[in-house]
């Protein structure tokens, strides 16, 4: 059974069947990653270009590893030092890379909708590795995979996303994917960082952790951008830590055991305290490992569509 879409642009509008298929397929790739020889042949002879117009370490490495594990030929591309800095348009850059007979393009870009645009101007499969504040679908998928691995299901679990929802592509992809799979999703953060009308995406909105934590099964803690808008969205790091930082004391007060997730990179002792990040309920490193399996699954499923 193939995926319904030629591209992975986002989890918004993706069917339950497709989400399920990606997660189920990832299980077998996850098993591959435990083998002594971690390489399988499905993408042999295929070329994948990783176009990263924005800095990224773990997502880029994770994709690259997934591609190599599937035996693809991998082209790396970073915006710095390329023709982009000479003013070339995204369209020209992408078409030039495609002209070298590339089968798939993985793109990270600072503009929301950039991968939608790319999918209209090139023929290769497009995988969105993060577009502005819009979506980061493979992160959403690996989060869902990790939750399912830990809890055995997604439906009827309460997943709370804490932090700057307005500027978070991770939050949006989690919301779209988890809602489709039947989870209860809430967001919690300063009112200045929760977009208006977010409730129309079917999520509950909280501004006080103590109101939401007692019913939470999974807490997905977002990285706070220290440099964001210099004091206009929240006054100080200290105040953010006091009001929204996830600490052992706060979790004990909630009186509930919950799974702790974080998309990384972590600001230790800002949005999450070190003892929580390293606790037995933290699955942060499993997320990283599962990320490779989920990306293998996406690459594999898109390549077999053609």
């Amino acid at each position, binding site marked *: 059974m193939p995926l319904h879409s030629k591209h992975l642009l986002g989890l918004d509008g993706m069917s339950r069947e497709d989400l399920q298929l990606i997660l189920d397929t990832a299980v077998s790739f996850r098993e591959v990653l435990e083998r002594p020889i971690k390489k399988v042949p499905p993408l042999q002879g295929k070329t994948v270009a990783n176009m990263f117009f924005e800095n990224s370490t773990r997502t880029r490495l994770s994709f690259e590893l997934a591609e190599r594990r599937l035996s693809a030929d991998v082209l790396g591309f970073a915006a710095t030092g390329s023709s982009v800095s000479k003013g070339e348009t995204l369209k020209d850059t992408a078409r030039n890379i495609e002209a070298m007979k590339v089968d798939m393009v993985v793109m990270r*870009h600072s503009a*929301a*909708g950039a991968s939608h*645009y790319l999918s209209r101007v090139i023929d290769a499969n497009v995988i969105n590795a993060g577009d502005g504040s819009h979506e980061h679908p493979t992160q959403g998928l690996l989060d869902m995979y990790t939750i399912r691995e830990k809890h055995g299901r997604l439906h009827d679990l309460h997943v709370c996303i804490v932090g700057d929802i307005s500027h978070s592509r991770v939050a949006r992809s989690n919301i779209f994917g988890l809602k489709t799979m039947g989870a209860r999703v809430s967001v919690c953060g300063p009112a200045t960082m929760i*977009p208006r009308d977010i409730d129309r995406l079917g999520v509950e909105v909280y501004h006080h952790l103590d109101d939401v934590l007692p019913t939470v099964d999974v807490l997905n803690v977002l990285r706070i951008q220290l440099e964001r808008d210099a004091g206009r969205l929240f006054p100080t790091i200290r105040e953010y830590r006091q009001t929204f930082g996830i600490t052992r004391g706060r979790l004990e007060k909630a009186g509930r055991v919950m799974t702790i997730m974080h998309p990384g990179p972590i600001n230790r002792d800002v949005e999450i305290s070190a003892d929580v990040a390293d606790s037995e309920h933290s699955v942060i490193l499993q997320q990283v490992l599962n990320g490779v399996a989920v990306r293998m699954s996406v690459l594999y499923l898109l390549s077999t569509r053609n």
Partner: protein
Amino acid sequence: MQLLLKGGRLIDPSTGRDETLDIVVTDGRIDRIGKGLSGNTAQVIELRGKIIAPGFLDMHVHFREPGYEYKESIASGCEAAAAGGFTAVCCMPNTNPPIDDESIVHFIHARSRVALDGLVDVYPVGAVTAGRKGEHLAPLAELSAAGAIAFSDDGDPVHDAELMRRALEYSAMFKKPIIQHAQEPSLTMGGVANEGYPSASLGLPPMPRIAEEIMVARDIRLAEYTGGQYHVAHVSVAQTLDHVRNAKAKGLPVTCEVTPHHYTLIDEALSSYDTNTKMNPPLRTRDDVEAMKAGLKDGTIDAIATDHAPHSYDEKEVEFAQAPFGIIGLETALGLAVTELVRKNVLSFYELVEKLSTNPRRLLHLPAIAITEGELANLTIFDPGAEWVVDPSTFRSRARNTPFGKMHLVGKPIGILNNSHAFWS
């Protein structure tokens, strides 16, 4: 040269006339009006079921010349206007250099006189502030004397309240309106989409509706305080109309216009990140669209203006955030007006003619066009029932940036007469 316009429905709000009549035009002047006219030497144009109206004026276009001729020139803009059924336009000053000096007004006049032999009247709108920088006043008296018909920093609001006050006071001396692109800039910084559900789900930086409303509220108080004439460009928010409505009820010289896209499209159209849905002000909500229609119906909105904003193909062929704001509108305006307004019982054809001709001319203090014997023929002729599909490749404009391609519309221009010249679509 004699033309016999035979059997058309003549709508002339200047005389209150709305009836089927023949018109003989000789050497650009209306010779005779009556029933059953014939002219031996006349070229006969059969207009049964068609409408003859006073020439349409689009009081908000960007012709990009001088400075950005690759997007549009005065010549290509005039052709687009003629093809769209407009005999006159007001061109906005965000050119390079901007229209903040009388020499640019003269330049635009010179260019428009040779475009289609001067068929389309081009009225330059002068900048309010020097360089459109919002710092100090442009030479409004000189601009006015040279022929600037109004003042605006369109694209950028005049956001300094003291400067806006002075602009209203100063321009009132020569009875020219200040046209404001009303938006509190600190609320819309970096924004590209209406704030609400689509911006939340698409992750696009938001432009809240309140930014428009509060700027209009402030400006109306300033207009009342100074006695200046104030016109709101391209209203997009329901609450803006409440402020304009209240101002009109008080008898203040406050007017406004709406674009066809703001009464036709809503922000959910952004879901595919099509850069032709990116405009400023942004597309708003369904409630706002309904409010625009109600405002047209009850007279709060005086005029329909397109905000014709040409951009080159490549400029719009980029990521959403990078694309410039704006779409072209001259050649789809009439079709969208008939389809969305007349066909949906918002306006009658008579009222539509007022919004496209009578009202904008009045608020700009241009003489009313009278379709009476002895007058120069300044006419827009259109087919109110013609059905067509928008094909941007056929546009006379140099630009193609429209979200209305492939749309089915009713109502199409047939031609215009003005300044002793004619253009047939």
